[in-house]
């Protein structure tokens, strides 16, 4: 809402307050100021002059020399190239030292040898448009007589005279205060904020016309949908003379950011700005059947709005219709078919209130949020409709725009009820943590137009304050005028103590987080929504269950249209993005969620995921990734994890991918990205990924730490090298060794060798085996026996032989 400070001054005088202080204090009492600007601040030194004489410039064909009376003893000489000037014309003259729009400074000087003591101005140079100055021309000098300003005295300061200077304050009004989307509403707030008197203009009812004509001769109004239309009031104006509005009105609209059109339309806009009640004017001759029906639109009903845009309506929308057609979309915009034109002779003024949600929905569906709809959608006061209509009629008379026909139509089936609330200073003081008297509270509310009972214990909420319905609301009214800054800080002395602690799960996640950073990984944050095409990029088959995802019905774009079911594509994209800008040698992790659909009317599951990813120039990172995975399992205290080779994960290299299991619980998958995936993301070399189900990991964690004694007796270490088929997995060999006897404590693989001595399709694996008994020092004989058992086990179970 843009507020003209000149307009505000009509109702309350804050002239002794600087604009900065005005803005600051209005913000602090709840009317937030976004900013302010000074209109016409650059303009100075422009006076009204009459051209006395025009002569050709002796040295320039296209210039003329004018003698101009500017109210001084002698005329001044002005040279111009303008062709629309004539002797006797009244024009704006920028004198020596004047300043114009855009900061142009005017200096006297010689033009082709002749003195020019000033410059004539166009409307643009005065910061005006054709809408502000109807009748003027754009590419010439403003002839004041052309725009109805022929009676300005010669020599008068035009900046003053035309009212070009004003200060406009831009308010950001919150949705609960539609009453402040008006000059009167802001005047009320200003008056209370600065303890100034508020003088509201007494509205003069139109004088009854002598001819006995009455609105009944013109119009019948039926409200067919009383659910969505609370009040519909109308008046008729006859003998309308469409003309530009007077300058003062145009300047008020201009300062408020509304374009002047003509007197009738300007009146409706003026009243909307002043009272906060949007109005509409119909051309009576376009109302078929002399009747107005407020009804629901038909499904598929066609309607062309004032701005010539066609719309298809549906039955959720409310229209103002005549006997045949819709003439306005209620509360949003009028129709082109009943627009005020220069030939309009009779006008119907509408002042109505509608269901806020219905207006909001219609405006949203049709993509036409207007000044009007943005007010109606917040809920307007039905009691305000009639004063606004009266004001419009008064303006018609004031402007001589037409004759107000006797009588008002007012469909107002359910009168708005008065709301009374208790006022209890003790309750409010205890709630806010302040100590104010009942009298202070009552006085503050009175200034805000609340009614207060004699015993000060009951208040009546003004009809324009639908937002005040309970104690909290009253407390806020009092507090904002008392000052939010005067509340004393306290620390919940009355509240019971609570424990501030992370849960076991939160600590688990934090430990994981800390460890990953400690292991040299950088954390990333990627969006939860992705493009469904990203599933193609990671090679998911068309029937992969991960393609079944939560779909956003109104996404910003394809790229953010579905909630991810896997974090791998986001990690790959991040690796690719970094690679493309030549970032090298880093490892990434992300702790986030995926979103797995359940049924359409239920929320999806949101399991947590830990994702790891890095790139190496050569394809040598599998065991490094496995090292990270094992470190994570180790920190979580996971016992008995196993790794199963899997060739069916489409994103991964079929021979370099493993699933992580504890018992039958799958904890995740890791491995080398499939070469086709690597290509898709513009990477080369090897890319290694892991996606771990953090929730499952948490479930199999070691919950409690119980110490195991350190062995008292020494171990005997024996190293072996075995030859076996390539297909034999290290884990199988290790488990055969470990299960061969009770003395085997551990078996660590320390070398794998392939070469001609071993033979094709074979490998040699070297293990260091620790043998230990918990109750005695082993003898060599015992160790030899254990070794024999190991060799026997390997040979019988796996056909593996000592090298």
């Amino acid at each position, binding site marked *: 809402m843009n507020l003209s400070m000149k307009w505000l001054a009509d109702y309350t005088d804050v002239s002794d307050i600087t604009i900065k202080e005005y803005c600051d204090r209005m913000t602090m*009492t709840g009317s937030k100021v976004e900013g302010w600007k000074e209109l016409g601040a650059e303009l100075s030194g422009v006076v009204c002059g009459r051209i006395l004489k025009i002569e050709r410039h002796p040295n320039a064909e296209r210039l003329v020399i004018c003698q101009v009376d500017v109210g001084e003893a002698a005329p001044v000489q002005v040279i111009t190239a303008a062709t629309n000037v004539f002797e006797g014309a009244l024009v704006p003259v920028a004198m020596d030292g004047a300043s114009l729009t855009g900061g142009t400074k005017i200096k006297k000087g010689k033009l082709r040898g002749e003195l020019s003591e000033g410059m004539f101005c166009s409307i643009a140079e005065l910061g005006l448009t054709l809408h502000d100055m109807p009748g003027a021309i754009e590419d010439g000098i403003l002839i004041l007589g052309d725009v109805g300003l022929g009676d300005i005295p010669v020599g008068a300061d035009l900046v003053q005279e035309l009212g070009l200077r004003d200060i406009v304050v831009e308010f950001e009004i919150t949705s609960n205060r539609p009453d402040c989307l008006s000059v009167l509403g802001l005047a009320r707030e200003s008056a209370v904020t600065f303890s100034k008197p508020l003088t509201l203009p007494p509205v003069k009812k139109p004088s009854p016309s002598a001819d006995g004509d009455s609105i009944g001769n013109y119009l019948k109004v039926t409200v067919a949908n009383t659910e969505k239309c609370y009040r519909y009031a109308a008046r008729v104006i006859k003998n309308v003379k469409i003309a530009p509005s007077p300058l003062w009105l145009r300047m008020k609209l201009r300062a408020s950011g509304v374009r002047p059109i003509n007197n009738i339309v300007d009146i409706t806009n003026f009243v909307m700005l002043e009272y906060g009640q949007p109005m509409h004017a119909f051309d009576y001759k376009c109302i078929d059947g002399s009747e107005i029906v407020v009804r629901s639109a038909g499904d598929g009903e066609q309607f062309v709005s004032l701005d010539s845009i066609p719309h298809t309506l549906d039955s959720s929308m409310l229209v103002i219709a005549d006997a045949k057609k819709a003439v306005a979309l209620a509360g949003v915009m009028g129709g082109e078919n009943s627009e005020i034109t220069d030939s309009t002779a009779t006008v119907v003024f509408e002042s109505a209130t509608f269901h806020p949600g219905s207006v909001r929905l219609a405006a949203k569906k049709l993509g036409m949020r207007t000044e009007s709809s943005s007010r109606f959608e917040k809920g307007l006061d039905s009691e305000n409709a009639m004063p606004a209509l009266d004001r419009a009629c008064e303006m018609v008379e004031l402007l001589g725009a037409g004759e107000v026909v006797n009588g008002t139509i007012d469909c107002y089936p359910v009168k708005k009820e008065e709301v009374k609330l208790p006022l209890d200073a003790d309750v409010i003081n205890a709630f806010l*943590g302040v100590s104010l008297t009942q009298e202070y509270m009552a006085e503050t509310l009175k200034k805000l137009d609340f009614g207060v009972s004699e015993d000060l214990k009951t208040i009546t909420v003004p009809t324009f304050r639908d937002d005040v319905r309970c104690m909290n609301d009253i407390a806020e009214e009092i507090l904002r005028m008392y000052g939010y800054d005067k509340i004393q800080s*306290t620390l919940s002395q*009355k509240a019971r103590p609570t424990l*501030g602690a992370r849960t076991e799960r939160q600590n688990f996640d934090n430990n994981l987080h800390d460890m990953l950073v400690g292991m040299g990984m950088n954390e990333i*944050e990627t969006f939860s929504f992705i493009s469904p095409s990203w599933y193609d990029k990671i090679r998911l088959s068309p029937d992969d269950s991960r393609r079944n995802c939560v*779909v956003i019905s109104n996404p910003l774009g394809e790229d953010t249209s579905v909630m991810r079911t896997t974090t791998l594509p986001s990690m790959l994209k991040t690796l690719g993005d970094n690679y493309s800008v030549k970032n090298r040698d880093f490892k990434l992790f992300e702790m986030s969620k995926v979103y797995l659909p359940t049924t359409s009317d239920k929320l999806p599951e949101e399991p947590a995921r830990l994702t790891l990813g890095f790139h190496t120039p050569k394809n040598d990172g599998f065991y490094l990734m496995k090292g990270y995975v094992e470190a994570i399992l180790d920190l979580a205290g996971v016992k008995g994890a196993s790794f199963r080779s899997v060739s069916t994960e489409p994103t991964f290299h079929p021979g370099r991918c493993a699933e992580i299991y504890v018992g039958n619980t799958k904890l995740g998958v890791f491995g080398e990205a499939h070469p086709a995936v690597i290509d898709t993301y513009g990477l080369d070399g090897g890319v290694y990924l892991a996606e771990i189900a953090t929730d499952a990991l948490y479930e199999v964690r070691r919950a409690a730490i119980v110490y195991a004694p350190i062995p008292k007796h020494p171990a005997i270490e024996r190293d072996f090298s075995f030859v076996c088929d390539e297909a034999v997995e290290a884990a199988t060999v290790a488990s055969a060794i470990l299960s061969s006897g009770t003395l085997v404590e551990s078996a660590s693989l320390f070398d794998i060798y392939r070469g001609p001595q071993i033979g094709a399709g074979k490998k040699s694996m070297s293990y260091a085996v620790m043998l230990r008994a918990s109750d005695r020092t082993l003898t060599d004989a015992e160790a030899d026996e254990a070794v024999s058992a190991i060799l026997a086990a390997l040979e019988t179970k796996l056909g593996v032989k000592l090298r």
Partner: protein
Amino acid sequence: MRETLEKIKKEALEALSSPSAQLEELRIRFLGKKGELTAVLRGMGKLAPEERREIGELANSVRQQIEQRIEMLSEQQKAAKLDAKLAEEKLDVTVPGVGVKTGRFHPLALVQRQLEDIFLGMGYSIVDGPEVEYDYYNFQALNIPKDHPARDTQDTFYITENILLRSQTSPVQARVMEKTTPPIKIISPGRVYRSDAVDATHSPLFHQLEGLVIDRGITMGDLKGTLEMFAKRMFGEQTRIRFRPHHFPFTEPSAEVDVSCFVCGGTGCRLCKGEGWIEILGAGMVHPNVLRNCGIDPEEYSGFAFGLGIERIALLKYHIDDMRLLYENDIRFLNQF
């Protein structure tokens, strides 16, 4: 014999006068089993007892002197050798170190951790909630019915008519209140979604932290005291806060909360755009309708709620001028935290 001993002594000490003397060789020559001194001692049996004692003493003294000298020289030689070795091992300490890389927390995680720790210290627990949420919890329970104009300020991504991506962390408030008997003292950080196109100051996904306190006798002064304590911990002891009246459907009274600029201290600078204040929070007393919707009697209990944007704090704290950097995850950016 005496002369022989004196001669041995002289010769030995002479040979041992050079610091680089071959000690082992000399030890064998003079003191070894077949050494010169041993030879003299062997001949002592022929002497008269009187003389034997005297010569014996002399011989021992010579042996001791030689031994001492050898030992001394040996120490010196060892020390010299070590010195030489150490000198040889001198490294160029300006050559860069090898191999150890640390990772970094994402700046958002750093800020979130700091926020959590402050509120944990004030007795809050941390609660999580679903990001894909029912319209009911995101709006209706929070006093924002369908078609409420406040919905326009939070352009929301919808999944179905009744399921959406939460546009705020506030639905967690409603979920906690439904399940918990006061006292309630929680924070809830997490991802939220609004359909804002990506630019330097907007992102369709960002993080908020919500706070909620409900008990008997909670006042607006308590809200102010809490946020003041938070602001001082987060931005420095000298930080002041300012409440400005505002409107949120789920709190009443409501306030926007500014902190005094932590760069200029309130005198005005580039960070605070000359204002001296920076808006960081929305807060207020929980609306009685919200309490009622969640099964808490507003006659018995009152409480406050607040919410802040984690991105906003990260941008301010680290002087980041473009929000997109937070989600681009360029390693050159991430390595700075």
